[in-house]
């Protein structure tokens, strides 16, 4: 039984890792090199820190995978928008886009980070303030 559970764990790990790698490769080929770099940064940051949290491996991997999907989607939509806007506004938009794109790109990372961490929280700590004041 223990062996089956271990095998299942490895299977899940393999599946999610493949899916995440697929997202990064897809972003590199279909969107841009910057998107792939951003996803790699996200995976390093999120993956390493969440690996230290006291949560199940499946939950962490699922969140990491969702993060990659959202990052890919965000960048894809953004690149389409950039192509259309550049056609309308020309060089000026290109300049603005170059400056702001890393900042806007980080918006999804920070937002995803803050929301996903709240799924990991320990509900027993919710009433922390009142209890500790009287400690």
């Amino acid at each position, binding site marked *: 039984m223990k062996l089956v559970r271990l095998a299942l764990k490895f299977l899940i790990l393999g599946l999610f890792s493949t899916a995440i790698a697929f997202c990064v490769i897809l972003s590199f080929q279909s969107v841009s090199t910057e998107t792939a770099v951003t996803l790699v940064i996200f995976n390093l940051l999120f993956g390493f820190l969440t690996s230290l949290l006291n949560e199940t491996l499946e939950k962490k991997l699922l969140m990491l995978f969702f993060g990659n999907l959202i990052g890919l989607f965000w960048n894809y939509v953004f690149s389409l928008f950039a192509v259309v806007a550049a056609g309308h506004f020309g060089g000026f938009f290109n300049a603005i886009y170059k400056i702001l794109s890393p900042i806007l790109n980080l918006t999804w990372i*920070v937002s995803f980070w803050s*929301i996903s961490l709240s799924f990991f929280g320990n509900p027993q700590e919710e009433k922390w303030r009142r209890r500790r004041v009287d400690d």
Partner: protein
Amino acid sequence: MTIEILEATFSVLTILVVAYLVRHYIFTVIVLRNHHKHKRKFAVKDATYQPTVSILIPARNEEKVIGRLLQRMTELTYPKDKMQVIVVDDASTDSTGSVAEHYSRTYSFIEVVHVEKEDGGKGKASALNFGFKHSTGEILLCFDADYFPQRSIIEKLVKEFIDPKVGAVQGRVIVLNEPRNMVTRLVALERIGGYRIDQEARNHLGLIVQFGGTVGGFRRDLLENLGGWDESILAEDTDLTFRIYLAGHQVRYVGDAECYEEAVDTWSAYRRQRYRWAKGHMQCFFKHSLSVLRSSHLGLKEKIDGWLLLNIYFMPVVVLLSLVIGVPLVLLQSSQWLAAFWISIPASLFSFVGNFAPFFEVGIGAYLDGRRRAQWLIPLLIFTFLYNILICTKACLDLLSSKIAGKNSNIWTKTIHSGDGNRYIMS
């Protein structure tokens, strides 16, 4: 040639920004790796070391909050015969003095000392030095008037002084009026990053633990040797931290000694407070940076961390400079590697807030505290940082201009407390 100079400057500034991000990443990992380790919960009955303690409370026009703190002092579990509470009424023009006098008449361990009108209002360091002269305890603790400590806080703090290397202790600050508005909520997140992760990691790694000016204390003999607080520095707490380390002592952080503060609740109050902190911290940089690097009492890692700590309020200015230099370089597409550096600048925009904690650090701090909904506000910290860029740049320019002009333009801007925190504890 101009492009090359700009590129080199941009690279140096960005490497500095990245160094801070890496430093805080290491802090976060260290705290996460160690938080599972079982810590025995402290119980008051376990306290074996009970020295005499003097608690200094500097107060200037604090009538709305001073009663709350003094009432709490009467509820502390530490033996009252070993406690001396000194309220330093810093020439208040409201009823702070009379509220304190009322407590002093009722409780023998509470004393009030009044600073004369012509000597008052010179700042917290001056008030603390005045109170210090009247104190008798072996250990000196400081609390701001708007704070509300746990009942067992003194036992938790003083137990660290059993170790002779420990010269000072620092407890944890938590925002009391957090639900009040967006400002207090964001300040609460800054505090979580600063105390739950930064201070704890520094303590764990044996780096420079920062004394925060309140919810902490010192050995009396050490403070006497150091000559008390330096009244010429606006960040008297940071100054004292470095003087303690340079004298060969340590500051210990006690994360479970919690105290609740009434945080600033308007953007203008936030600006005034942070301006004072920024300018004071920058003064400490000019005063201590060389001594830290030369000190024989500090190891290499303490020197590096101490130097980074002294520089921390310059970082928003560095980010601003990076942005100003980086934008034309990006537009000119000067080189390929620049794009990679350019990515790190926005990362820093979500960093260096308050106690200068990046977003991932604040997130983990909130996670460890079980603050699930508070985490949703992390993306908004970018506004606090943009505000900090302006505040720190102004503080930097003001300090440099006063240094060039050879004038000491220290003006202590007091933080006004509304007493709003009362409703979060007196229900």
